[in-house]
């Protein structure tokens, strides 16, 4: 508070006293005017600061600006804004001013809220100290902490709730903080509360929008008919990023009620999928507590810490699916619609995320619910599509039976009748050939009808072959032997149809012509599919109709394969039918 002029020189004589008084008065006036104008300046600076901090919407930037402005306004060397965690007792964030990154690193861990900082947490009122270390609550400084003398702190409130505290130390020039500094700081803290509140609202709105977008995208993927595993992979990825988790696992119940992992998303690797090869089923979550949890329908947040007894194995089972720490918060959110359990969305965070996961659960639950709706809608859509397809096939089969076959049959009968009364042998031969051709056509159509029915029952191929073999028992009079290998489940659809037809035809041939007492059928898959049917019957009759065999051969050749019939020792026949696994070729 120094004036711009040097002190007045001493004056002699009577004038001196008056002059002195006047000088004093002038000084006083000048000083007051200066003080007033300085107050004016500080007020203006405060207003500028308030404008500056309330203008931003990005929360970290707003916090930094608050600290910077506070230091500026009260001439503090160092400033910090400590953000309280949800427990209201510990600092979870500490935004500083005046310290370089190197200095911060040298101090090490950020303060949790001991000492004088803690005092302000417990008693949220402005506090001003001349010397920090003299206060009874002082806890001392950690090593490498710059020396700090004068101190001033005040809580920052958002709607009566303490958000955190603003701390300022080391008034520039070594003086202590004044009443006026405290008033300015309090005013700034009030403005800071509003600015933080706005930024937090904005952030929350933004985040909710991101969650909504993720929900919409997953729903759209499902309803567009993308496969569930792909949509769940996307869901896992988005949910992990949005909830800032280490690991997200999505598991869905399969037809047998098993909880099968559909997607695992972890940080770093960026990999989505089940960890297994694409298309292969993921691991099964088979702990008997899963059904209980899912039927309950309520989300569960498990907090496990190192040393906990192993009673939280559901969380452990989830965390074991990714390269994440064994302990930390884990959310298990049932994906269900009403009482129908669909699956589970599991999210695992690192241990230090404990204070912030609570509100994330509130975002995960609606996400899981929306996904459940979309899954059910997509599945219904798929079923309806399937049903429409089946009905259409059924209709085609029916039409072919009711109209096409009947007409061909009738025409054939008519030709046959004509042939009986035809005078010329040549005409008779022609007519008989035509009848034969019509008979073949009827057989082909009947065959097509059979295939249409078969496709209507997209059951397990393995079971289908077993059923065929079982059914053949009636015609044979004894049960055929059967050997199937495991590759049967991964055959192309066109090949499946031919394989079934070949097994039927081969077994039917044996029961019609071979007079066998034992039949062995085997289906082996590898680079090709091989059906082998060996019997101990009378061997192939060269007179026997060959249309069935021609049919088998054609079915083999369509897949680049072949048909072989060889005599078996001492008697009987071995039929070997092979087909390639590639797409069917022409012919």
């Amino acid at each position: 508070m120094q004036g711009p002029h040097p002190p007045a020189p001493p004056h002699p004589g009577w004038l001196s006293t008056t002059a002195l008084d006047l000088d004093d008065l002038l000084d006083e006036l000048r000083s007051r005017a200066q003080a007033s104008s300085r107050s004016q300046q500080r007020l203006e600076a405060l207003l500028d600061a308030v404008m500056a901090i309330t203008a931003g919407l990005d929360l970290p930037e707003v916090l930094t600006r608050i600290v910077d402005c506070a230091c500026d306004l009260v001439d503090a060397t160092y400033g910090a804004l400590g953000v309280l965690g949800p427990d209201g007792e510990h600092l979870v964030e500490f935004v500083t001013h005046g310290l370089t990154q190197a200095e911060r690193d040298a101090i090490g861990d950020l303060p949790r809220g001991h000492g004088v900082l803690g005092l302000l947490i417990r008693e949220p009122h402005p506090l001003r100290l001349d010397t920090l270390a003299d206060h009874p609550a002082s806890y001392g400084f950690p090593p490498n902490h710059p020396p700090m003398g004068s101190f001033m702190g005040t809580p920052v409130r958002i709607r009566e709730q303490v958000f955190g505290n603003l701390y300022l130390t080391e008034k520039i020039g070594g003086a202590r903080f004044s009443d006026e500094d405290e008033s300015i700081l309090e005013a700034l803290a009030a403005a800071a509360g509003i600015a933080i509140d706005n930024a937090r609202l904005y952030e929350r709105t933004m985040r909710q929008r991101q969650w909504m977008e993720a929900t919409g995208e997953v729903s759209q993927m499902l309803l567009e008919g993308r496969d569930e595993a792909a949509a769940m992979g996307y869901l896992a990825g988005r949910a992990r990023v949005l909830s800032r988790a280490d690991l997200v696992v999505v598991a869905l119940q399969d037809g047998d009620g098993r909880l099968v992992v559909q997607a695992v998303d972890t940080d770093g690797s960026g990999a989505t999928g089940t960890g297994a090869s694409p298309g292969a089923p993921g691991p099964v979550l088979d702990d008997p507590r899963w059904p209980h949890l899912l039927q309950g329908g309520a989300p569960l947040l498990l907090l496990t810490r190192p040393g906990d007894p192993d009673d939280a194995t559901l969380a452990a089972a989830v965390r074991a699916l990714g390269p994440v720490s064994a302990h930390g918060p884990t959310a298990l959110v049932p994906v269900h619609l009403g009482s129908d359990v669909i699956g589970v969305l599991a999210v695992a965070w690192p241990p230090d995320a404990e204070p912030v996961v609570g509100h994330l659960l509130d975002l995960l639950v609606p996400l899981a619910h929306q996904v459940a709706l979309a899954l059910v809608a997509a599945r219904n859509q798929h079923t309806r599509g399937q049903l429409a397809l089946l009905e259409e096939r059924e209709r085609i089969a029916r039409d072919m039976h009711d109209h096409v076959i009947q007409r061909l049959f009738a025409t054939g009968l008519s030709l046959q009748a004509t042939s009986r009364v035809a005078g010329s042998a040549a005409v008779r031969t022609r007519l008989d050939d035509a009848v034969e051709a019509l008979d073949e056509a009827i057989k082909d159509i009947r065959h097509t009808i059979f295939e249409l029915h078969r496709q209507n029952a997209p059951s397990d191929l393995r079971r289908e072959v077993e059923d065929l073999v079982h059914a053949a028992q009636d015609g044979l009079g004894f049960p055929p032997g059967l050997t199937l290998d495991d590759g049967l489940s991964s055959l192309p659809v066109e090949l499946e149809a031919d394989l079934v037809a070949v097994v039927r035809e081969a077994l039917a041939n044996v029961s019609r012509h071979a007079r066998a007492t034992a039949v062995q059928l085997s289906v082996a898959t590898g680079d090709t599919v091989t059906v082998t049917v060996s019997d101990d019957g009378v061997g192939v009759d060269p007179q026997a109709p060959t249309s069935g065999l021609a049919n088998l051969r054609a079915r083999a050749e369509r897949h680049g394969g072949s048909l072989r019939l060889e005599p078996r020792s001492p008697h009987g026949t071995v039929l070997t039918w092979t087909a390639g696994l590639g797409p069917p070729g022409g012919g």
Partner: protein
Amino acid sequence: MQPEDSTAIRIFLVDDHEIVRRGLRELLESVPRFEVVGEAGTAAEALARIPATSPDIAIFDARLPDGSGIDVCREIRSRYPATKALILTSFDDERALSSAVLAGAAGYLLKDIKGNGLVDAILAVAAGKQLLTPADVERARRSWARESQVDPRLQSLSPQERRVLDHIARGMTNREIGLTLSLAEKTVKNYVTAVLGKLGMESRTQAAVFAATHPPSAGGAASP
């Protein structure tokens, strides 16, 4: 009542396809001993006209639009045992066999033109032969037993319906079953209809609905 070799064999055709009846008539009338005495396109027509013409042999399509050909066939066989029956079907072996056994027919013929030996079959049946062998009947019974394990509709057969089915398989007419089980013939008929319904052998429309909702078992499918 059996026709001598020289006497005419009177035949009645039941098929809802007019074109099929015409083809059959043409073919059968080209055989000197055969005489087609009437035709029907529906179950109702068949029930009204067959008694009036008292044919030696009636040939039934297994499925008719207004009811089951099997049902009509049983009815005729029960009331006019002298009329022999053949089931003509474009379906596969297994179902054709089942149809014939259930219908109390002497045999069944697939709607093949050349291979079916329709003329021979008619001659044989007219001569009093039974084309269904006991082994055929046994096969049909086993196929019902197997289907009843996989098809919930068959599991719903009541004990009385099972007994009726059993007697059908022994080749008894509705009247005979009624006498054996001390039931009115009308009651037996109702049981038969219920059994046919549960076996998926009823009228075409109903069967189509059944087929649309129940995929056929792989064992009962057609032979190429």
